Protein backbone atom coordinates (compact mmCIF):
# COMPACT_ATOMS: atom_id res chain seq x y z
CA UNK A 1 0.00 0.00 0.00
CA UNK A 2 1.40 3.40 -0.89
CA UNK A 3 1.42 6.50 1.23
CA UNK A 4 1.36 9.11 -1.50
CA UNK A 5 -1.06 11.86 -0.72
CA UNK A 6 -4.33 11.60 1.13
CA UNK A 7 -6.90 9.12 -0.15
CA UNK A 8 -10.03 10.82 -1.39
CA UNK A 9 -13.55 9.98 -2.39
CA UNK A 10 -14.41 11.73 -5.65
CA UNK A 11 -11.66 14.27 -5.01
CA UNK A 12 -12.99 15.51 -1.67
CA UNK A 13 -10.42 15.37 1.15
CA UNK A 14 -11.36 13.00 3.95
CA UNK A 15 -12.33 14.28 7.38
CA UNK A 16 -10.32 13.08 10.38
CA UNK A 17 -13.26 10.85 11.30
CA UNK A 18 -13.27 9.23 7.84
CA UNK A 19 -9.51 8.79 8.03
CA UNK A 20 -9.62 7.05 11.40
CA UNK A 21 -12.37 4.71 10.20
CA UNK A 22 -10.07 3.59 7.41
CA UNK A 23 -7.02 3.45 9.64
CA UNK A 24 -9.03 1.19 11.95
CA UNK A 25 -9.27 -1.26 9.06
CA UNK A 26 -5.51 -1.24 8.51
CA UNK A 27 -5.39 1.33 5.69
CA UNK A 28 -1.82 2.66 5.70
CA UNK A 29 -2.56 5.29 3.05
CA UNK A 30 -5.28 6.76 5.27
CA UNK A 31 -2.83 6.68 8.18
CA UNK A 32 -0.31 8.71 6.16
CA UNK A 33 -3.04 11.30 5.52
CA UNK A 34 -3.97 11.33 9.20
CA UNK A 35 -0.30 11.74 10.12
CA UNK A 36 0.02 14.76 7.84
CA UNK A 37 -3.09 16.30 9.37
CA UNK A 38 -2.24 15.85 13.06
CA UNK A 39 1.56 15.43 13.39
CA UNK A 40 2.31 19.20 13.70
CA UNK A 41 -0.10 19.36 16.67
CA UNK A 42 1.34 16.20 18.17
CA UNK A 43 4.89 17.50 17.92
CA UNK A 44 3.90 20.87 19.43
CA UNK A 45 2.31 19.22 22.48
CA UNK A 46 5.28 16.88 22.98
CA UNK A 47 7.73 19.80 22.63
CA UNK A 48 5.84 21.97 25.09
CA UNK A 49 5.81 19.22 27.73
CA UNK A 50 9.32 17.87 27.18
CA UNK A 51 11.12 21.10 26.22
CA UNK A 52 13.62 19.10 24.24
CA UNK A 53 13.35 18.71 20.48
CA UNK A 54 14.96 15.27 20.19
CA UNK A 55 12.84 13.79 22.96
CA UNK A 56 9.71 15.45 21.62
CA UNK A 57 10.27 13.85 18.22
CA UNK A 58 10.75 10.48 19.85
CA UNK A 59 7.53 10.83 21.83
CA UNK A 60 5.65 12.11 18.76
CA UNK A 61 6.75 8.97 16.94
CA UNK A 62 5.60 6.72 19.81
CA UNK A 63 2.30 8.56 20.07
CA UNK A 64 1.57 8.25 16.33
CA UNK A 65 2.36 4.56 16.54
CA UNK A 66 -0.09 4.27 19.47
CA UNK A 67 -2.68 5.96 17.26
CA UNK A 68 -2.11 3.37 14.54
CA UNK A 69 -2.20 0.45 16.98
CA UNK A 70 -5.29 1.52 18.87
CA UNK A 71 -7.32 3.03 16.00
CA UNK A 72 -9.68 0.00 16.01
CA UNK A 73 -10.67 1.00 19.56
CA UNK A 74 -11.25 4.70 18.86
CA UNK A 75 -14.71 5.52 20.20
CA UNK A 76 -16.27 8.58 18.56
CA UNK A 77 -18.85 8.85 21.35
CA UNK A 78 -16.05 9.80 23.75
CA UNK A 79 -14.64 12.74 21.79
CA UNK A 80 -13.19 13.93 18.49
CA UNK A 81 -10.24 12.36 16.67
CA UNK A 82 -7.85 15.27 17.30
CA UNK A 83 -8.66 15.31 21.04
CA UNK A 84 -8.08 11.57 21.19
CA UNK A 85 -4.73 11.83 19.40
CA UNK A 86 -3.56 14.69 21.63
CA UNK A 87 -4.71 12.85 24.76
CA UNK A 88 -2.54 9.90 23.73
CA UNK A 89 0.36 12.26 22.99
CA UNK A 90 0.06 14.10 26.27
CA UNK A 91 0.03 10.91 28.31
CA UNK A 92 3.14 9.62 26.51
CA UNK A 93 4.94 12.92 27.08
CA UNK A 94 4.02 13.08 30.75
CA UNK A 95 5.06 9.48 31.30
CA UNK A 96 8.46 10.36 29.85
CA UNK A 97 8.81 13.40 32.14
CA UNK A 98 7.98 11.21 35.15
CA UNK A 99 10.39 8.46 34.25
CA UNK A 100 13.09 11.08 33.88
CA UNK A 101 12.20 12.62 37.21
CA UNK A 102 12.48 9.17 38.71
CA UNK A 103 15.88 8.73 37.12
CA UNK A 104 16.97 12.17 38.27
CA UNK A 105 17.97 13.16 34.77
CA UNK A 106 15.58 15.98 34.38
CA UNK A 107 17.20 18.36 36.79
CA UNK A 108 20.41 18.24 34.76
CA UNK A 109 18.56 19.94 31.97
CA UNK A 110 17.05 22.55 34.26
CA UNK A 111 18.69 25.23 32.16
CA UNK A 112 16.54 24.50 29.14
CA UNK A 113 13.28 24.03 31.02
CA UNK A 114 11.96 27.48 30.50
CA UNK A 115 12.73 27.76 26.84
CA UNK A 116 9.67 28.97 24.97
CA UNK A 117 7.98 26.45 22.75
CA UNK A 118 9.07 27.29 19.22
CA UNK A 119 5.99 28.07 17.21
CA UNK A 120 5.91 27.56 13.51
CA UNK A 121 4.33 30.87 12.76
CA UNK A 122 4.25 30.26 9.02
CA UNK A 123 2.29 27.06 9.32
CA UNK A 124 0.07 28.52 11.96
CA UNK A 125 -3.14 29.79 10.52
CA UNK A 126 -5.26 32.67 11.67
CA UNK A 127 -7.85 30.24 12.93
CA UNK A 128 -5.24 28.60 15.15
CA UNK A 129 -4.19 31.93 16.64
CA UNK A 130 -7.82 32.65 17.47
CA UNK A 131 -7.99 29.29 19.23
CA UNK A 132 -4.93 30.21 21.28
CA UNK A 133 -6.43 33.54 22.20
CA UNK A 134 -9.65 31.84 23.31
CA UNK A 135 -7.80 29.34 25.51
CA UNK A 136 -5.62 32.12 26.95
CA UNK A 137 -8.62 34.32 27.73
CA UNK A 138 -10.56 31.45 29.23
CA UNK A 139 -7.60 30.40 31.39
CA UNK A 140 -7.54 33.94 32.71
CA UNK A 141 -11.18 33.63 33.69
CA UNK A 142 -10.22 30.83 36.10
CA UNK A 143 -9.22 31.43 39.69
CA UNK A 144 -5.47 31.65 40.19
CA UNK A 145 -5.43 28.31 41.98
CA UNK A 146 -7.45 26.61 39.25
CA UNK A 147 -5.20 28.05 36.56
CA UNK A 148 -1.94 27.17 38.30
CA UNK A 149 -3.04 23.68 39.25
CA UNK A 150 -4.08 22.92 35.68
CA UNK A 151 -0.99 24.41 34.07
CA UNK A 152 1.49 22.74 36.42
CA UNK A 153 -0.12 19.36 35.90
CA UNK A 154 -0.67 19.63 32.16
CA UNK A 155 2.51 21.30 30.98
CA UNK A 156 5.04 20.38 33.67
CA UNK A 157 3.76 16.85 34.10
CA UNK A 158 3.32 17.17 37.87
CA UNK A 159 1.00 14.73 39.61
CA UNK A 160 -1.74 16.34 41.68
CA UNK A 161 0.25 15.43 44.81
CA UNK A 162 3.27 17.32 43.48
CA UNK A 163 1.02 20.23 42.53
CA UNK A 164 -0.39 20.30 46.07
CA UNK A 165 3.14 20.37 47.45
CA UNK A 166 4.33 23.15 45.14
CA UNK A 167 1.26 25.30 45.78
CA UNK A 168 1.16 24.41 49.48
CA UNK A 169 -2.51 23.51 49.27
CA UNK A 170 -4.44 20.50 50.63
CA UNK A 171 -4.76 17.51 48.29
CA UNK A 172 -8.55 17.62 48.31
CA UNK A 173 -8.50 21.28 47.28
CA UNK A 174 -6.16 20.60 44.36
CA UNK A 175 -8.24 17.66 43.11
CA UNK A 176 -11.37 19.80 43.27
CA UNK A 177 -9.74 22.82 41.57
CA UNK A 178 -8.47 20.66 38.70
CA UNK A 179 -11.95 19.32 38.15
CA UNK A 180 -13.93 22.55 38.47
CA UNK A 181 -11.21 24.47 36.59
CA UNK A 182 -11.53 22.14 33.60
CA UNK A 183 -15.31 22.41 33.71
CA UNK A 184 -15.08 26.21 33.77
CA UNK A 185 -12.54 26.16 30.93
CA UNK A 186 -14.84 24.00 28.83
CA UNK A 187 -17.89 26.14 29.53
CA UNK A 188 -15.96 29.32 28.72
CA UNK A 189 -14.68 27.90 25.42
CA UNK A 190 -18.14 26.66 24.47
CA UNK A 191 -19.66 30.06 25.13
CA UNK A 192 -17.21 31.60 22.67
CA UNK A 193 -18.02 29.30 19.74
Amino acid at each position, binding site marked *: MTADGPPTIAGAPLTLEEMIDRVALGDEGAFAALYDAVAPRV*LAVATRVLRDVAQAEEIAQEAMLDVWRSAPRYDASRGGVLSWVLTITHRRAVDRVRSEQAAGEREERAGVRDVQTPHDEV*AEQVETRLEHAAVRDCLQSLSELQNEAIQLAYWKGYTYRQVAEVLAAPLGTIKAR*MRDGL*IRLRDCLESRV
Partner: protein
Amino acid sequence: MAEDLHSLAGAAALDALEPDERAAFEAHLASCADCRAEVAALQEAAAQLALSAGSIAPPPRLRAAVLERVGRTRQVPPVVTPLRRRRPVLQWLAAAAAVVLVLALGTTVVVQQQSISDKTQRIEAQERRLDEAAELLRTTPQVVALPSGGELAYATAGGAAVVEVRDAASPGAGRQWELWVIPAGGDPRPSGLVPGTDGRFFLPDLGDATAIAVSNEPAGGSQQPTTTPFVVQL
Protein backbone atom coordinates in the same frame (compact mmCIF):
# COMPACT_ATOMS: atom_id res chain seq x y z
CA MET B 1 -13.71 4.31 47.94
CA ALA B 2 -15.79 4.98 44.84
CA GLU B 3 -16.48 8.55 45.90
CA ASP B 4 -12.80 9.08 46.55
CA LEU B 5 -11.97 7.81 43.07
CA HIS B 6 -14.71 9.93 41.58
CA SER B 7 -13.09 13.11 42.90
CA LEU B 8 -10.00 12.24 40.84
CA ALA B 9 -11.73 12.82 37.48
CA GLY B 10 -10.11 16.23 36.93
CA ALA B 11 -6.62 15.04 37.85
CA ALA B 12 -7.16 11.97 35.65
CA ALA B 13 -8.11 14.11 32.65
CA LEU B 14 -4.84 16.05 33.14
CA ASP B 15 -2.81 12.80 33.41
CA ALA B 16 -1.90 13.91 36.93
CA LEU B 17 -2.57 10.71 38.89
CA GLU B 18 0.10 8.68 40.62
CA PRO B 19 0.67 5.39 38.76
CA ASP B 20 -1.08 3.18 41.33
CA GLU B 21 -4.03 5.56 41.44
CA ARG B 22 -4.26 5.59 37.67
CA ALA B 23 -4.62 1.81 37.65
CA ALA B 24 -7.31 1.91 40.36
CA PHE B 25 -9.10 4.75 38.62
CA GLU B 26 -9.12 2.99 35.27
CA ALA B 27 -10.43 -0.18 36.87
CA HIS B 28 -13.19 1.94 38.40
CA LEU B 29 -13.98 3.52 35.01
CA ALA B 30 -14.61 0.09 33.54
CA SER B 31 -17.61 -0.30 35.82
CA CYS B 32 -18.88 3.30 35.94
CA ALA B 33 -20.48 4.72 32.80
CA ASP B 34 -21.10 8.13 34.41
CA CYS B 35 -17.43 8.39 35.33
CA ARG B 36 -16.39 7.51 31.77
CA ALA B 37 -18.65 10.26 30.43
CA GLU B 38 -17.30 12.78 32.92
CA VAL B 39 -13.66 11.99 32.20
CA ALA B 40 -14.33 12.12 28.45
CA ALA B 41 -15.85 15.60 28.84
CA LEU B 42 -12.95 16.82 30.99
CA GLN B 43 -10.45 15.33 28.53
CA GLU B 44 -12.09 17.38 25.77
CA ALA B 45 -11.35 20.50 27.82
CA ALA B 46 -7.77 19.33 28.41
CA ALA B 47 -7.41 18.75 24.65
CA GLN B 48 -8.25 22.43 24.14
CA LEU B 49 -5.19 23.22 26.24
CA ALA B 50 -3.21 20.90 23.98
CA LEU B 51 -4.40 22.81 20.92
CA SER B 52 -3.02 26.00 22.43
CA ALA B 53 0.48 24.54 22.04
CA GLY B 54 0.12 25.36 18.34
CA SER B 55 1.81 23.51 15.48
CA ILE B 56 5.40 22.58 14.75
CA ALA B 57 6.19 21.20 11.30
CA PRO B 58 7.78 17.80 11.89
CA PRO B 59 10.95 16.95 9.94
CA PRO B 60 10.41 14.59 6.96
CA ARG B 61 12.53 11.88 8.63
CA LEU B 62 9.93 11.65 11.41
CA ARG B 63 7.21 10.87 8.87
CA ALA B 64 9.40 8.29 7.17
CA ALA B 65 10.23 6.64 10.50
CA VAL B 66 6.59 6.50 11.64
CA LEU B 67 5.30 5.11 8.33
CA GLU B 68 8.08 2.54 8.21
CA ARG B 69 7.19 1.29 11.70
CA VAL B 70 3.47 1.29 10.90
CA GLY B 71 4.17 -1.12 8.06
CA ARG B 72 5.39 -3.71 10.55
CA THR B 73 3.14 -2.98 13.54
CA ARG B 74 -0.04 -4.94 14.17
CA GLN B 75 -3.15 -3.09 15.32
CA VAL B 76 -5.05 -4.14 18.43
CA PRO B 77 -8.25 -6.06 17.81
CA PRO B 78 -11.45 -4.04 18.19
CA VAL B 79 -13.29 -4.52 21.47
CA VAL B 80 -15.52 -7.54 21.01
CA THR B 81 -18.97 -7.22 22.52
CA PRO B 82 -21.10 -10.22 23.41
CA LEU B 83 -23.62 -11.02 20.74
CA ARG B 84 -27.32 -10.97 21.47
CA ARG B 85 -29.04 -14.06 20.23
CA ARG B 86 -31.98 -13.30 18.04
CA ARG B 87 -32.86 -15.70 15.28
CA PRO B 88 -31.59 -19.23 14.88
CA VAL B 89 -28.88 -19.32 12.27
CA LEU B 90 -30.76 -21.77 10.07
CA GLN B 91 -33.61 -19.35 9.64
CA TRP B 92 -31.19 -16.68 8.58
CA LEU B 93 -29.34 -19.03 6.30
CA ALA B 94 -32.58 -20.04 4.62
CA ALA B 95 -33.06 -16.42 3.74
CA ALA B 96 -29.60 -16.16 2.27
CA ALA B 97 -29.54 -17.41 -1.26
CA ALA B 98 -25.86 -18.07 -1.80
CA VAL B 99 -24.95 -20.26 1.13
CA VAL B 100 -21.81 -22.17 0.46
CA LEU B 101 -20.82 -23.81 3.69
CA VAL B 102 -21.27 -23.52 7.40
CA LEU B 103 -19.06 -24.77 10.18
CA ALA B 104 -19.29 -24.76 13.90
CA LEU B 105 -16.52 -23.63 16.16
CA GLY B 106 -16.61 -24.22 19.87
CA THR B 107 -16.00 -21.15 21.91
CA THR B 108 -18.25 -18.31 22.99
CA VAL B 109 -17.39 -14.66 22.71
CA VAL B 110 -17.22 -13.37 26.22
CA VAL B 111 -15.63 -10.08 27.04
CA GLN B 112 -16.39 -9.11 30.58
CA GLN B 113 -14.42 -7.34 33.19
CA GLN B 114 -11.30 -9.29 33.82
CA SER B 115 -8.14 -8.32 35.52
CA ILE B 116 -5.83 -6.32 33.31
CA SER B 117 -3.23 -9.05 33.31
CA ASP B 118 -5.83 -11.60 32.18
CA LYS B 119 -6.74 -9.24 29.41
CA THR B 120 -3.14 -8.75 28.38
CA GLN B 121 -2.52 -12.47 28.36
CA ARG B 122 -5.63 -13.04 26.34
CA ILE B 123 -4.61 -10.42 23.79
CA GLU B 124 -1.13 -11.90 23.58
CA ALA B 125 -2.62 -15.34 22.98
CA GLN B 126 -4.87 -13.86 20.29
CA GLU B 127 -1.89 -12.18 18.71
CA ARG B 128 0.01 -15.48 18.60
CA ARG B 129 -2.95 -17.14 16.91
CA LEU B 130 -3.24 -14.23 14.49
CA ASP B 131 0.45 -14.59 13.68
CA GLU B 132 -0.12 -18.27 12.99
CA ALA B 133 -3.16 -17.50 10.85
CA ALA B 134 -1.26 -14.84 8.91
CA GLU B 135 1.55 -17.30 8.28
CA LEU B 136 -0.93 -19.95 7.09
CA LEU B 137 -2.57 -17.36 4.86
CA ARG B 138 0.83 -16.75 3.27
CA THR B 139 1.70 -20.42 2.82
CA THR B 140 -1.51 -22.45 2.55
CA PRO B 141 -4.54 -20.17 2.26
CA GLN B 142 -8.11 -21.31 1.66
CA VAL B 143 -9.18 -19.48 -1.48
CA VAL B 144 -12.73 -19.09 -2.75
CA ALA B 145 -13.69 -17.19 -5.91
CA LEU B 146 -16.13 -14.35 -5.33
CA PRO B 147 -19.17 -14.56 -7.66
CA SER B 148 -18.64 -11.02 -8.96
CA GLY B 149 -14.90 -11.45 -9.52
CA GLY B 150 -11.80 -11.58 -7.37
CA GLU B 151 -11.36 -13.93 -4.46
CA LEU B 152 -11.68 -14.36 -0.74
CA ALA B 153 -8.62 -15.91 0.92
CA TYR B 154 -8.48 -16.88 4.56
CA ALA B 155 -6.71 -18.96 7.17
CA THR B 156 -7.72 -19.82 10.73
CA ALA B 157 -5.68 -20.81 13.76
CA GLY B 158 -7.13 -21.62 17.17
CA GLY B 159 -10.23 -19.46 16.79
CA ALA B 160 -8.48 -16.52 15.11
CA ALA B 161 -8.63 -15.79 11.40
CA VAL B 162 -6.97 -13.59 8.83
CA VAL B 163 -9.14 -12.85 5.80
CA GLU B 164 -8.20 -11.14 2.57
CA VAL B 165 -10.44 -9.81 -0.15
CA ARG B 166 -8.33 -9.76 -3.28
CA ASP B 167 -9.02 -7.96 -6.50
CA ALA B 168 -12.78 -7.83 -6.02
CA ALA B 169 -15.04 -6.19 -8.58
CA SER B 170 -15.69 -2.49 -8.00
CA PRO B 171 -18.52 -2.29 -5.45
CA GLY B 172 -20.05 0.59 -7.44
CA ALA B 173 -20.36 4.30 -6.72
CA GLY B 174 -21.21 5.03 -3.09
CA ARG B 175 -20.93 1.35 -2.16
CA GLN B 176 -18.45 -0.87 -0.35
CA TRP B 177 -17.82 -4.55 0.21
CA GLU B 178 -18.45 -5.49 3.83
CA LEU B 179 -17.16 -8.53 5.70
CA TRP B 180 -19.41 -10.43 8.12
CA VAL B 181 -18.82 -13.07 10.75
CA ILE B 182 -21.80 -15.34 11.27
CA PRO B 183 -22.15 -16.87 14.74
CA ALA B 184 -24.08 -20.04 15.45
CA GLY B 185 -27.61 -19.04 16.38
CA GLY B 186 -27.19 -15.33 15.69
CA ASP B 187 -27.20 -12.58 13.11
CA PRO B 188 -24.13 -11.73 11.05
CA ARG B 189 -21.75 -9.34 12.78
CA PRO B 190 -20.27 -6.45 10.77
CA SER B 191 -16.55 -7.26 10.72
CA GLY B 192 -14.88 -4.82 8.42
CA LEU B 193 -15.21 -2.69 5.31
CA VAL B 194 -13.06 -3.29 2.26
CA PRO B 195 -11.39 -0.02 1.27
CA GLY B 196 -11.94 -0.33 -2.50
CA THR B 197 -11.34 -3.73 -4.03
CA ASP B 198 -8.72 -5.22 -1.68
CA GLY B 199 -8.63 -5.56 2.07
CA ARG B 200 -7.03 -7.56 4.84
CA PHE B 201 -8.82 -8.27 8.11
CA PHE B 202 -7.57 -9.65 11.41
CA LEU B 203 -10.30 -11.44 13.34
CA PRO B 204 -8.80 -12.24 16.74
CA ASP B 205 -11.67 -14.23 18.18
CA LEU B 206 -14.19 -15.96 15.99
CA GLY B 207 -16.06 -17.13 19.07
CA ASP B 208 -18.96 -19.34 18.08
CA ALA B 209 -18.77 -18.19 14.48
CA THR B 210 -19.65 -20.74 11.85
CA ALA B 211 -19.06 -18.82 8.66
CA ILE B 212 -17.86 -15.60 7.14
CA ALA B 213 -19.58 -13.66 4.38
CA VAL B 214 -19.14 -10.71 2.05
CA SER B 215 -21.91 -8.45 0.80
CA ASN B 216 -22.27 -5.26 -1.17
CA GLU B 217 -23.37 -2.42 1.11
CA PRO B 218 -23.78 1.35 1.00
CA ALA B 219 -20.43 3.09 1.67
CA GLY B 220 -19.78 3.17 5.39
CA GLY B 221 -21.34 -0.23 5.88
CA SER B 222 -24.55 -1.64 7.34
CA GLN B 223 -25.43 -3.25 10.65
CA GLN B 224 -27.03 -6.20 8.85
CA PRO B 225 -26.52 -7.30 5.22
CA THR B 226 -28.85 -5.41 2.89
CA THR B 227 -27.93 -7.47 -0.18
CA THR B 228 -27.57 -11.22 -0.43
CA PRO B 229 -24.22 -12.07 1.13
CA PHE B 230 -21.74 -14.54 -0.29
CA VAL B 231 -21.26 -16.97 2.59
CA VAL B 232 -18.20 -19.15 3.17
CA GLN B 233 -17.90 -21.84 5.79
CA LEU B 234 -14.69 -21.43 7.70
